[in-house]
């Protein structure tokens, strides 16, 4: 098992480097450059002034050198100084990451707590109105983009009904850990972010359960005279667990990427807002820092998934 984990970690390293290289190149090759944004408010700057600024930020160096320099610093945990915000990238990510994790964790929890029972119900009462209802919910959940749901929520629940704030994560004047206030701010974005997960999970659980339910061991369990509830949760769910671990890794990726849009809609001061603003203004150090942190998160979640998979099924780790 240890060898398996070590092997997976070693395999993750080139993937990680590849991601950073690709992100670096994409940022550099896209039109526009950060200097344009930096001097946008200033005039009378001569070409020499702009060149001096370029040098001060090291943007005059060849791409290879810039990337290697960045990589060397990043290896020591130094992601540099934001070009536009005049503060360390690490500090900015440090402020934004907990907010995003808070949002993503809540959304994932909701996706699981709602999605799994829905899927199980659909499998248990297959081809009944319950199954059809779950299908409608999940098709809608796939079809409705989170930002649209978010905007709809803001329009109806915040602007018209005045039940929720239009955005942010903390009302002005409230204490940092006012739980009621935080929940009010969380409900909209969590709803928008978790709907896709609910849809995904309910379909997945239904399909897996139905497959397992058709197997011999279930017939045996039923033949023993077990109640249906015990058959589903004790025998079927356990066997359906394995493929669901795979789906969990995918869900995390969905939540991390979906958060960019949802955070933007709900003015949630997390990684998504940070990324969006940084990408708009070509703030390379922030974008690279965000790429590192989110790809580490993602790779870690895949690693955990694989390890869990291996733990659950010995065939995997010897494969």
């Amino acid at each position: 098992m240890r060898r398996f984990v070590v092997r997976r970690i070693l395999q993750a390293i080139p993937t990680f480097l590849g991601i950073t290289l690709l992100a670096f190149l994409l940022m550099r090759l896209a039109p526009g450059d950060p200097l344009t944004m930096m001097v946008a408010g200033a005039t009378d700057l001569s070409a020499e002034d702009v060149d001096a600024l370029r040098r001060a930020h090291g943007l005059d160096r060849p791409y290879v050198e810039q990337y290697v320099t960045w990589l060397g610093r990043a290896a020591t945990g130094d992601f540099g100084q934001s070009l536009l915000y005049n503060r360390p990238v690490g500090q900015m990510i440090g402020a934004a990451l907990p907010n995003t994790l808070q949002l993503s964790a809540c959304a994932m929890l909701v996706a699981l707590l709602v999605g799994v029972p829905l899927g199980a119900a659909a499998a248990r009462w297959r081809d009944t109105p319950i199954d059809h209802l779950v299908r409608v919910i999940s098709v809608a959940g796939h079809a409705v983009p989170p930002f649209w749901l978010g905007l709809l929520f803001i329009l109806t629940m915040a602007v018209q009904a005045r039940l929720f704030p239009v955005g942010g994560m903390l009302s002005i004047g409230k204490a940092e850990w006012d739980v009621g206030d935080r929940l009010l701010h969380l409900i909209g974005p969590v709803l928008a972010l978790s709907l896709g997960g609910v849809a995904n999970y309910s379909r997945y659980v239904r399909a897996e359960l139905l497959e397992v339910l058709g197997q011999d061991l279930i017939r045996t369990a039923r033949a023993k005279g077990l109640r249906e509830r015990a058959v589903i949760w004790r025998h079927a769910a356990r066997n359906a667990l394995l493929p669901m671990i795979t789906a969990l890794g995918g869900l995390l990726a969905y939540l991390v990427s979906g958060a960019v849009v949802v955070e933007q809609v709900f003015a949630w001061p997390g990684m998504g807002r940070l990324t969006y603003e940084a990408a708009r203004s070509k703030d390379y150090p922030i974008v690279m820092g965000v790429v590192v942190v989110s790809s580490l998160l993602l790779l870690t979640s895949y690693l955990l998934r694989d390890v869990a998979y291996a733990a659950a099924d010995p065939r995997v780790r010897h494969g």
Partner: protein
Amino acid sequence: MPRLPRSRAAGVAGSFLALLVLAAACAPAATGPTAPPAAIAPQAARGGRAVVGAFSDARVLNPVLSSDASSAEVWGRVYEGLIAVDRNSAQPQPRLAERFDVSEDYKTLTFALRPGLVWSDGTPFSGEDVAFTAEAVMRSKKTVRKNIFQNVVGAKAFGEGTAPTIDGISVDGDVVTFRLDKPNCPALTDIGLFGIIPKSVFGKYHSAEDASKNIDDAPENVAPPLSTGPFVFQEWRPNDRIVLARNDRYAFGPALLDEWVYKVHPDATALAAALKTGEIDVARVDARDLEDLQRQDHLAFYPYLAPGYTYIGWNQLRGGKEFLQSTAVRQALAYGLDVDQVIGTVLSGQGKRMLAHTPPTSWAYDPEGLNDYAYDPARARALIEGDGWMMGADGVYEKNGERLEFSMLTNSGNKIRETLLQVAVEQYRQIGVSVTPRTESFEALTDRLNKSRDGTYGDAGGRDFDAVILGWNMGPDADAYGTWHSSQIKTGQNQIGYSDAQVDAAIESGRTVCGMPERKDAYRAFNKRLNEEQPYNFGFAVNTLLFANKRISGIEPGPFPNLQNSYLWNVERWSVAQPVAK
């Protein structure tokens, strides 16, 4: 003078180019402050909080490093300048300096500080802080504001580390003097409006031995500990809010509000929603939300004309489109476009036709003798035909096998510019001019605009477009050197490659002969020539659509950026009538 076009709404900070130096030249001793604490109405409530909404976060709270309007909105409440400008006329007024003076050769600026000025912690504010601010700019590697001080004698030498101080700045008790290496009329407002930072805080980042040491990465840049403004920095949650609290030692009397909050929402629509729900008190919004917000009983509407305009620029250095060099054709393109229709439809009437470069509210603007080019398609066609063009079979003019046809570019996502583009294509078609509309991302457009890549005129500075729809935001001074002087074609902001001896002469005069009547004459000639020549279709100026909750009183916006922002200039006199309804 204008700055780079931005895809987002107009900001204000801009370049603080001087104006009305006459005020100083002819009346050497300007009189006392115009905003005495006594102006506060006795019944105005004290206490409470005002929340100002914006759709982009500040970047840095230090005038040395800031270049964007959002940052200036916040640091402008914390660091005041030596002078302010009148929000309506842009006339310089005393602020931290109670008197200011420009010498007869226009090369020496003198500022006499108000007596008894203190920072928010009670330590004295002195001329040393002023001199240090200039030093901080000259030593900074990341500033974009060097142009403000680099004409001060010895500033460059100090920046390069070859001089221990800036020779041209002298501090004598409460009097600070700046000597310039040549006359430069905009310098009074450039230097006078610059926010002064505390030497006691930032001085430690400089080193007498090492000129490469600077304040660029100081943590105080994002958390200013001291203030000369009405508020003191409290807290910054990135992409969420900045909280400022009242400065009880403010020189012009403590603010009525306890707290001033800068709240960030993702876009103008979100701001409008937050205004409706009462989550924010004050915000500038888009025209599309205007009607909806005007129906809200709890909101008051404060429109004001922003100094700037949206224009169509005709590239004078474009291979194959040399017909744009013809004044007759450009005048035809002015008569052939109904700008008022665009103002009526896209801006709900919240705009004003521009006839030349200088904002109509400025002291430097004189409408006398400017042609208004009222919409007249027949006249447009006559002008084109007078230039030797014949109507072709498909309704487009032709001359020597060349068609009167070009592309018009703007950045995607800007509703106002996109609509102007549509209307221009349709209306120009009616006068026999074929225009191909093109939109690009702002980044791609800026790239095309800033690089001299035209096949024929690239060496002369020809940029890669035929016609472009963009906008300028302008500061308080009338100087237009960077946009219109022919020296700015190759690398500056004269992206259309316009070169005219009369315009050059007027700009140079307006910059170096600083008497008020002389400057007025210079800009009258400048605007008249541009109006006649039509190197741009000058398009329109747009109202800033400011809404505020009626519980806030004391808001008095004006067009010119006073204290870094045109509606926050008197924030210390804002008051809250009743508690937040929530």
